[in-house]
């Protein structure tokens, strides 16, 4: 009561920001004393009314009671219980760790050079998370949530057997917590629980890169869809210990889609649209985080006779990519990012959301080759187009270019004249 009295009535300190309200409170208190019963009556009445209204609005949301029906129990097969006693030694052997190094990381479309080490090492990877406004397209901006200040996040390259010491920093200016789930991790949440951090904090965990392959990483903080939709994904390559076949050029291309409060190319600072994301109707489907991220001056390059390897990822959040390069055939495809070049001569390869693929092809004819999602409206209406510019001598025996141009008069048209 004493505390209460002081809050209501005691004179304010000179710089008390609540000063203005004291006089009002005193007046109010006097009025209260005069008309206590009236106020009590009014309040009780209004409480009753609001309570009734609350009840009414609750019940109005309930659907009508359906006709009688019977719910039959589900039928399920049994699961053999597992106990810790069933555990046995794993089939793999962990290689000894020799030496320590900091992983080279690169931004799309660049890929770190192949790893030449012949042993496993402790490899340190550091990544920072930021929330930052960047261009999605000319004049169209968006607050991306990023790994490494970019969308897609940096490309990480480690070797099979490496012990990866992963540190995630959440920038102090971030508004929300973040974490990382690396699909290359064998362990709970792919590191998500270990790395959940508030703004201004860092977290470190270690994992063994047991299984070589090309993996997606992404943020897995609730609501996961929002974090992924805002741009939080990238690729990590766990290179097989024998290495990948040598090629002339390697590139990092990651597809993803964006759901905004505007139409395609509508200018201004756009925000995330939950409704479109739930319906899976994106305004943008793009490579490397922006319209034209792989066009014009940013186009990929190669010379005739060179072999190109694309490390392809799909951040989603929802769509599967039908990845195609117009005018090229993939000589080899490592489907779904595994390490087996298990298919030859592929026109279009599927990249699932949260998945990857590697493709290799030798270029033979100079020209501009378009990278597209062959779900084709995405390419020409939503931004999923990139370019590979191939330079070098023409090879007319492979592709002649146009050899003639004439009028065409169908035979039936000629005879009718």
């Amino acid at each position: 009561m004493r505390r209460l009295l002081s809050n209501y009535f005691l004179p304010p300190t000179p710089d008390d920001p609540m000063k203005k309200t004291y006089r009002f409170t005193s007046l109010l208190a006097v009025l209260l004393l005069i008309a206590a019963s009236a106020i009590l009556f009014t309040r009780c009445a209004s409480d009753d009314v609001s309570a009734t209204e609350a009840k009414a609005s609750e019940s109005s949301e309930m659907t009508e009671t359906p006709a009688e029906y019977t719910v039959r129990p589900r039928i399920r097969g049994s699961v053999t219980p597992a106990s810790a006693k069933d555990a046995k030694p794993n089939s793999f052997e962990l290689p000894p760790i020799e030496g320590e190094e900091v992983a080279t990381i690169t931004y799309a479309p660049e890929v770190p050079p192949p790893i030449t080490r012949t042993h496993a090492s402790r490899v340190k990877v550091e990544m920072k998370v930021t929330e930052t406004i960047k261009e999605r397209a000319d004049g169209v901006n968006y607050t991306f949530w990023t790994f490494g200040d970019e969308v897609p996040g940096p490309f990480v390259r480690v070797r099979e057997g490496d012990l990866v010491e992963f540190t995630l920093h959440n920038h102090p200016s971030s508004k929300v917590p973040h974490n990382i789930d690396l699909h290359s991790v064998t362990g709970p949440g792919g590191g998500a629980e270990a790395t959940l951090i508030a703004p201004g904090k860092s977290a470190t965990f270690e994992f063994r890169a047991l299984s070589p392959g090309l993996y997606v990483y992404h943020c897995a903080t609730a609501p996961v869809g929002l974090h992924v939709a805002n741009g939080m994904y990238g690729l990590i390559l766990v290179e097989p210990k024998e290495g990948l076949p040598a090629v002339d050029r390697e590139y990092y291309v990651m597809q993803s889609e964006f759901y905004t409060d505007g139409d395609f190319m509508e200018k201004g600072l756009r925000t995330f649209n939950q409704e479109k994301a739930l319906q899976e109707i994106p305004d943008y489907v793009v490579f490397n985080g922006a319209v034209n991220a792989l066009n014009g001056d940013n186009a990929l390059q190669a010379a005739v006779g060179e072999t190109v390897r694309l490390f392809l990822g799909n951040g989603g959040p929802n769509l599967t990519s039908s990845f195609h390069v117009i005018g090229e055939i993939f000589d080899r495809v490592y489907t779904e990012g595994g390490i087996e070049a298990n298919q030859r001569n592929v026109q279009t390869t599927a990249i699932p959301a949260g998945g990857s693929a590697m493709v290799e092809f030798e270029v033979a004819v100079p020209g501009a080759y378009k990278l597209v999602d062959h779900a084709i409206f995405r390419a020409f209406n939503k931004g999923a187009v990139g370019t590979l510019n191939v330079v070098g001598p023409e090879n007319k025996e492979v592709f002649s270019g146009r050899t003639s141009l004439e009028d065409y008069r169908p035979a039936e048209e000629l005879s009718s004249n």
Partner: protein
Amino acid sequence: MNTLLLRLLAGSLLLGGVALGALLLTAASSDTEPAPPGMVYVAEGTYQPLFKNPEESEPYTVKPFFLQETAVTRADFLAFVEDNPRWRKSNIATIFADEQYLKDWPSDLDFGPEELANTPVTNVSWHAARAYADWRGMRLPTTAEWERAAMASATDADGLGDPDFLRRLSEWYSQPAPPSWPDVRSTAQNYWGAWDMHGLVWEWVEDFNTALVRGDSRSDGDMDRVLYCGSGSIGASDFQDYAAFLRYGLRSGLQADYTVSSLGFRLAMDVPTSSPDDL
């Protein structure tokens, strides 16, 4: 003559009554209890936690309480550290706040440029927020209280169904943090009279570290699964309100000594159980 006098008397009484009534109505706007200065009254109501025990289906009842009209400002907090030397940035014990405590204050008793006086104080730990509350003879709101107050739109105690309200509050999360925060009372005032519940800064709650779990029947392990996995939406009573998800996400990532540049606080108070007239 006499009748005229009587009529005049009756008329003036009537006018006075109307005037008094109008005054009372203004003073006790909507269904409020007279709140202490700088605070607003939030009537008893229900709040549906975002994550709850599967066996619990009843919404949670929140008793009436007083909530501070705005977040605590830099000027408010300066008065506190002036009075309480051990909460100054150079004196604070490391167990009570991390290194970022009041990081943008140039010195112990200087919050920076005068124009920041009415901006919300941030980079304060939970311990510091509680100490401030003690000093003011108040407390921090609980998660249930904060969320109950925050679900009000400008016109409705339960604004969650209002798509405009949802869109507006989600916009805050779509903007990066500015170099310094705008003043308190710069966004919107809600049904209860509370300012800036959305769109200014995050706010500490008393039970931030237990907010996700009510009762003991749900293990932390299960909660982790709900929070971190792709199935994060399944436990939500209203997935549309993803802003609420973000608040839960933030709270679950905090510890009591953490200070965050976008995290401030406001105070709460119990409503006295006795009626106002025996004050």
